[in-house]
Each structure stands twice: as structure tokens, then as C-alpha cells.
């Protein structure tokens, strides 16, 4: 039978260490909504989402009440719209119309974000997918809850450099179109390599075509719990450090597994996966960077950071895998800059640079995330940063991503405030040297030799 100390420990994690379920994400296939008429397509999409997801928010709140664990976000991911709109959309405005429909459906069911305004163009773009990509700036500027992602490469296909170059322009244009809100549109736009089909976290969530009609995916969060556990083994050996992270990760993940199973049962929708990611928020005590500091670093970004993060990421997986029947999504430690107070402090102190962040992304999920850069950064330089990050994913057979915000009208040292979970960030300097001739070459980078495993 349970004892009082176990019960107290769990409640202390929830009340004092920010343990929560970050998101229940309901994946919905829109393949059966496809129509060649854009208005019919929009009606079909609206009807399907508002039917399948009608009880999502209420069910999430009920489970949170009964278990006493906060479930911060209830979200939806849909089949990439680049596929769904292919037959109906002849111009970018047609895609924007779908975006507005998704936004309306999200508001109707009460979810805070809907992901899947996406294109999967790892090897090539169809004309519809190119139209969708070109519509992203308008779509993000005219909606509130849409999240957009573009998969630009994979280990199996290589990197689509034409699309990488195009995204350099699209990111900048998105920044321009939302410049009155500190280029907020770019916080809702991510590019990826090896994007998973079942990721519950935004901005990269979409419902892959390999998935069933509807599925429940859950993302947990517990950086504060891990940090607190490590405080009790301060100065101990790596063995003790690793064991402590593993045990804590097991407990945190278990909460996600229970919530996911319960949501699946109550909604009558199959359980997909639990995403093991340690996801920080700007709240004090909910920081991945603070875990690195607790391990013995003065700031995230100090020498030793990549090793510390590699260790953390691996132990989180080892502990978490046993706690859940199905693990998927991104599963690792997230290192967004603006969404993590410890990372913000490190960037302000000058301990953290984009180059160091790039090294860190080799050993954790996911990539260069929520980094504010000067608004006058050339489009080709943004494309170069993307190409570098995707190359890391392609060669290392892992998911990598770039969510970078060129803040129009602001320069290095200034601050930018996105609000809420998106946080705030200092604008970080970008390497000034030119890469235009490289990214303008056109074509694609071939798949690496180790992708040929057949």
C-alpha cells in the first residue's frame, strides 16, 4: 500500500518543482477531408476537427482535476496541409483560407495551438507544397493559433537546399509581416530534418500520414524535478548523478503515461506515444540550463556543457523508456533560449553563443530553438544556419530543427518579449561572414553513405 512519504514526494514535485503534463496533443488525420473545391475542403476540415476534438479540453481539465496534476496545454495536430490542400489550392490565398479555417476550429474547441500547417519537402517540393511554403508569412500574420513546420531534409533523402534557401526568405518575410509584435510570427515557424510523425510539441507537431485516423500523444515536463533531485546528490560521482536522473525521469514520464492512457480511454481515441522531452518554461525553477548548472557549470555554455547535456539527455531516455509502453516524438532535453530563464541568463552573461548552441544540438533534442537574432541578418545567412543544423540531423540520424527569430528593427544586445510560455530573449550576434554563394547553388545535398543500410 502507498505510504505517506511517497504521496508527499509526488505532491511536492507538482506544487514546488513545476511537474506538469505540458501537452495532450490530439492528432487528427484530414486525409478524408480532401476535395478539389477549397470551400468544401475548408468546411470538411472545420467539421472534422470540431467533431473529433469537441471533448478534448474538457477531458484534459477533468483528468487534471482528478489526478491533481496540471495539464498545461491541450492541442491538436493535423495532417500536413501541403498534402491536404494539394488538389484545391491554386494560389497562396487558398492556403491562407485553410489556415484561417484551422484557426477558427482551434478557437471553437478551445485549444491554444493547432500544428500541421506544414510541408514535407525533404527531397523535393510539389507545386502545392511550394505554394504552402510561400503562404506561410500571410498565414501566420493573419491567424493566432496556427503553428507551421517544414521538413527540409532527412538521413534517407539528404537535404533539399532549394527549400532551405526558400525558407531563408520565408522566415524573414514572416518576421517582416509580424514586425509590430517583435516578429512573433517566427516563433510559430520551425524547419526540421528527420521530423517525427508523432511529435506532440509545437511548433513542429503534425499528424503524419503513417498515423491512424486520430491519436493521443502526450508530452511531459519536469526540469525542476530533475534539478531538485540533483541538489540532493551535490558533488557526488557521475554514477550517482546518472542514477538519480534516471530514477527521476522514470517518475516524471510515468505521470505522462497515466494521463495519456486515461485521456485515450475517456476520449475513445487510441494512445500513441509519450514524448520524454524535458521541456522548460520561463518560470523560475523550470529550467534545463539550471540542471546543467546544478551538475557543476557556472553557466550553460561553459566548457563541459555539451558533455553535461549528452549525459542528461541519455539518462532521461534510459529512465523514461521503461515508464511508458510507447515512446516517440522528439524525446530528449529541449534547449530553447527564450523559453528557459537559465538559458536567457547564460546568453545575457555572454556564456552562450549560437555556435555553442549548435554543438549542444548534436547531443540532445532538438535544435536551434527560440533564438532571437538581429533583424538585418541576410536571408542567405539564415539559410546557411538552417543548412548547418540540418546537416547535423542528417549525419547523426536524429531530429534537428531551427526556430530562429530575426527581430525586425532590433539589434544585438536589445531584448525581445514574446510573452507567456514563449518567454523573452536577448538578441544574439550572428557570424558576419557570407555564405550566399554556397546556399544559392540550388539542388540538394545527397543522402549520406550510412543511410544505405539495405
Amino acid at each position: 500500500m502507498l505510504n505517506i512519504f511517497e504521496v508527499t514526494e509526488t505532491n511536492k514535485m507538482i506544487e514546488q518543482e513545476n511537474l506538469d503534463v505540458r501537452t495532450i496533443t490530439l492528432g487528427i488525420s484530414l486525409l478524408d477531408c480532401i476535395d478539389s473545391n477549397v470551400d468544401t475542403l475548408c468546411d470538411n476540415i472545420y467539421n472534422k476537427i470540431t467533431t473529433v476534438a469537441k471533448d478534448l479540453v474538457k477531458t484534459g481539465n477533468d483528468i487534471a482535476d482528478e489526478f491533481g496534476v496540471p495539464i498545461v496545454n491541450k492541442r491538436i495536430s493535423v495532417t500536413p496541409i501541403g498534402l491536404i490542400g494539394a488538389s484545391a489550392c491554386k494560389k497562396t490565398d487558398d492556403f491562407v483560407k485553410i489556415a484561417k479555417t484551422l484557426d477558427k476550429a482551434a478557437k471553437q474547441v478551445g485549444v491554444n495551438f493547432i500544428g500541421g500547417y506544414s510541408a514535407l519537402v525533404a527531397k523535393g517540393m510539389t507545386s502545392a507544397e511550394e505554394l504552402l511554403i510561400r503562404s506561410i508569412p500571410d498565414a501566420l500574420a493573419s491567424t493566432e493559433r496556427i503553428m507551421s513546420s517544414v521538413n527540409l531534409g532527412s538521413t534517407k533523402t539528404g537535404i533539399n537546399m532549394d527549400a532551405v534557401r526558400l525558407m531563408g526568405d520565408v522566415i524573414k518575410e514572416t518576421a517582416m509581416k509580424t514586425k509590430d509584435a517583435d516578429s512573433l510570427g517566427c516563433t510559430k515557424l520551425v524547419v526540421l530534418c528527420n521530423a517525427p510523425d508523432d511529435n506532440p510539441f509545437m511548433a513542429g507537431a503534425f499528424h503524419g500520414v503513417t498515423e491512424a485516423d486520430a491519436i493521443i500523444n502526450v508530452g511531459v515536463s519536469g526540469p525542476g524535478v530533475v534539478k531538485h533531485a540533483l541538489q540532493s546528490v551535490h558533488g557526488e560521482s557521475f554514477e550517482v548523478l546518472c542514477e538519480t536522473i534516471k530514477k527521476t525521469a522514470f517518475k516524471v514520464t510515468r505521470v505522462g503515461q497515466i494521463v495519456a492512457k486515461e485521456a485515450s480511454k475517456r476520449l475513445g481515441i487510441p494512445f500513441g506515444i509519450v514524448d520524454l522531452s524535458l521541456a522548460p518554461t520561463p518560470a523560475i525553477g523550470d529550467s534545463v540550463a539550471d540542471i546543467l548548472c546544478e551538475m557543476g557549470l557556472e553557466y550553460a555554455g561553459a566548457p563541459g556543457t555539451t558533455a553535461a547535456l549528452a549525459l542528461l539527455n541519455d539518462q532521461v531516455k534510459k529512465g523514461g523508456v521503461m515508464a511508458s509502453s510507447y515512446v516517440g516524438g522528439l524525446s530528449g532535453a529541449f534547449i530553447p533560449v527564450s523559453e528557459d530563464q537559465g538559458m536567457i541568463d547564460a546568453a545575457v552573461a555572454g556564456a552562450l553563443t549560437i555556435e555553442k548552441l549548435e554543438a549542444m544540438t548534436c547531443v540532445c533534442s532538438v535544435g536551434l530553438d527560440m533564438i532571437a537574432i538581429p533583424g538585418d541578418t541576410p536571408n542567405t545567412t539564415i539559410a546557411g544556419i538552417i543548412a548547418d543544423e540540418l546537416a547535423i540531423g542528417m549525419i547523426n540520424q536524429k531530429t534537428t530543427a531551427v526556430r530562429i527569430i530575426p527581430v525586425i528593427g532590433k539589434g544585438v544586445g536589445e531584448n525581445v518579449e514574446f510573452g507567456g510560455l514563449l518567454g523573452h530573449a536577448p538578441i544574439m550576434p550572428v557570424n558576419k561572414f557570407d555564405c550566399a554563394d554556397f546556399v544559392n547553388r540550388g539542388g540538394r545535398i545527397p543522402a549520406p553513405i550510412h543511410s544505405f543500410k539495405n
Partner: protein
Amino acid sequence: MKKMIITVVGQDTVGIIAKVCTYLADSGVNILDISQTIVSGWFNMMMITDMAAANKPVKSISDDLEELGKEIGVQIKCQSEDIFKGMHRI
């Protein structure tokens, strides 16, 4: 059986257990186990209860207990046993 865990945390005072138990009896909730301890000066109590035969929904019991806690000056939470078992038992 619908096992729910009730926890009470706060300043120790006369009659906490009595008030909580009276409310539970009136609501048709069976108490299976009670343990109590003082952790760094704070009163900590845990009850394992069965709410299968309760005469009101679990959500209202949970809300009522929270309200009762505010009256006594302690924090009372009512949570499904599953969350604790999941975390502490393989």
C-alpha cells in the same frame, strides 16, 4: 472500488481529522487507511479512501474538501490513487 487519496498539509490544530472524517462520512466515503506525520513542523496526513459508494461526484467532494481546508487553514487535496501508484510502483 474507486480509490482516492486525500492529503492534508498545514499548521497543526485541534479537530482537523474530525472535521475531514465527518465530511467523508456524510458523503458516503469509506476510509481504508490513515497515516499522519509531522514534517519540518507541518502537519501531514494521508487517507486512502474508497469513493465507489459516495453519494456525490468525486469532483464535488474534491471541491468541498478544498473549501473545508480553507476554513480550517490547511491545504486539502483529493487525487486519484493511480497517479501515486504509477509513479512509485513498477
